[in-house]
């Protein structure tokens, strides 16, 4: 029996006709770890994280979340994971309070817990004053913070974050970092994909760097700096991927079945 809360082995995803988005990825995450998943755009990070929450079906490979597998126990996994996606999916015809309450209902929480969670989370992300406004009226930063609150509504054991601070100003980014540190210190396992090296360095205990659908290096920040004889994480990134930060590559996620327009 594995003690890891996330186990991924030889995970592959090929989109028709033959786009290999993920090519044999294996890693594990221990309970309470803050794990960073880095890589240039189009590296396969989002496809990997989408497979880990069952939004994309793997072509092959194995995923276990807290000992459960999607084939048999998908609902057990859904109860244990929260996911703040790269695209902030909000119902713009609802208020923040309504959305949080609905999520509480759909995660089958008792009414009293829903009430206390709603107040706690609105306070956490500093949106108490606008909780009864439609989410369509929120700024980008408010939407990101609220999306984080939504993913925490059912108090998941594992939080998946896909580029959670993209497009945020430094103040909003710092605010989210502080929340994430607090959540991790309270015991939550966090799996973060980002292409901000500064973010990964500030938050993560351990990192994996992905490029062209494969993990090219993995370890703690110190271990990676030593291994690649680099001064900082950015240098490690450049040495392992050969990419300039922010460089646009073929977006393999275009094949995401929910991403079409």
């Amino acid at each position: 029996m594995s003690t890891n809360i996330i186990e991924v082995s030889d995970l592959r995803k090929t989109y028709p006709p033959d786009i290999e988005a993920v090519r044999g990825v294996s890693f594990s995450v221990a309970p309470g770890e803050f794990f960073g998943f880095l890589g240039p755009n189009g590296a396969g990070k989002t496809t990997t994280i989408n497979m880990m929450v069952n939004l994309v079906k793997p072509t092959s490979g194995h995923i276990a979340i807290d000992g459960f597998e999607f084939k048999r126990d998908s609902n057990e996994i859904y109860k244990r994971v929260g996911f703040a996606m790269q695209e902030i999916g909000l119902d713009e015809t609802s208020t923040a309070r309504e959305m949080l309450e609905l999520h509480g209902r759909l995660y089958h929480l008792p009414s009293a817990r829903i009430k206390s969670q709603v107040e706690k989370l609105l306070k956490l992300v500093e949106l108490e004053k606008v909780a009864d406004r439609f989410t369509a009226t929120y700024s980008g930063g408010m939407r990101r913070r609220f999306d984080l609150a939504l993913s925490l509504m059912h108090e998941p054991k594992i939080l998946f974050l896909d580029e959670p601070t993209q497009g945020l100003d430094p103040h909003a980014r710092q605010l989210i970092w502080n929340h994430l540190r607090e959540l991790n210190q309270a015991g939550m396992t966090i799996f973060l994909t980002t292409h901000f090296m500064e973010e990964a360095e500030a938050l993560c205990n351990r990192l994996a760097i992905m490029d062209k659908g494969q993990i090219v290096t993995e370890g703690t920040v110190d271990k990676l700096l030593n291994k690649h004889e680099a001064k900082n994480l950015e240098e490690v990134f450049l040495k392992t991927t050969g990419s300039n930060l922010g460089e646009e590559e073929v977006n393999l996620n275009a094949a995401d079945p929910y991403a079409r327009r």
Partner: protein
Amino acid sequence: MSTFFSDWYYLSIRSIKQIWRPLLALIPSLFIPIFFFLVNSASLNAFSKVPGFPPDITYRDFIAPTALFTAVFFSAGNAGIELVQDISNGYFKKLMIMPINRLTIILGRLTEVAVQAVMQGAIVLVLLLIVGVRFQTGVLGLVALFAMLILFAMAWSCVSMISALRTQNARLVQSMFVIVFPFLYLTTSQAPMQLLPPTFRLIATYNPVTYIIEGVRALVLSNWSNPAIWQGFAVAGVLFGVMVSLTVGSFQKALK
């Protein structure tokens, strides 16, 4: 099983709130049937004197069922538009990773369609009563009439939901609105079958909407012995069964 019904209930409540958010969105699907009813009943009243037109019925009474039907017809496509909006903005993904029975997402939308059909139908019904239209089959007939409209509205909403699930393209789903017109006008909605030109009559005979309109018309103008009532229910029931099955199929395909 208990969570199945609670999930359905809460997703339905969410969908139902979208009917009047924003309130102005209700206007087009009410304006069109009311406008056509008022204009046509005033301007085409003499049509009821044409030989072959059912005796003892004014043109206003003849097209009153069409107004009721149109109010429901025009709004039933909203379910697909809202579904494709959920897909486009990413909210659909959030629902996909919740511990819910995914079928309740579709059932919530169908419940919204049923509620909207009742709401819009009731508004047009009040207008018809105000202008003097009388319902020959009484209160029970009204219940049957709304049941038929709800069945049809849910079946028709599946057309837009299927296109939402298959194309995931908001513009395309919105443009599906135009197919309402041939389905509505190539029927007996404006004139009785015997007054339609032969080609038109042939198309109307094979257009399932004809049977719904005739069923509603029989409930308004006729009595319970009119076979158009059960024919209307049969067509609405079959359409409901087929379209909901196809929608569930498209939904399951979209999840793969």
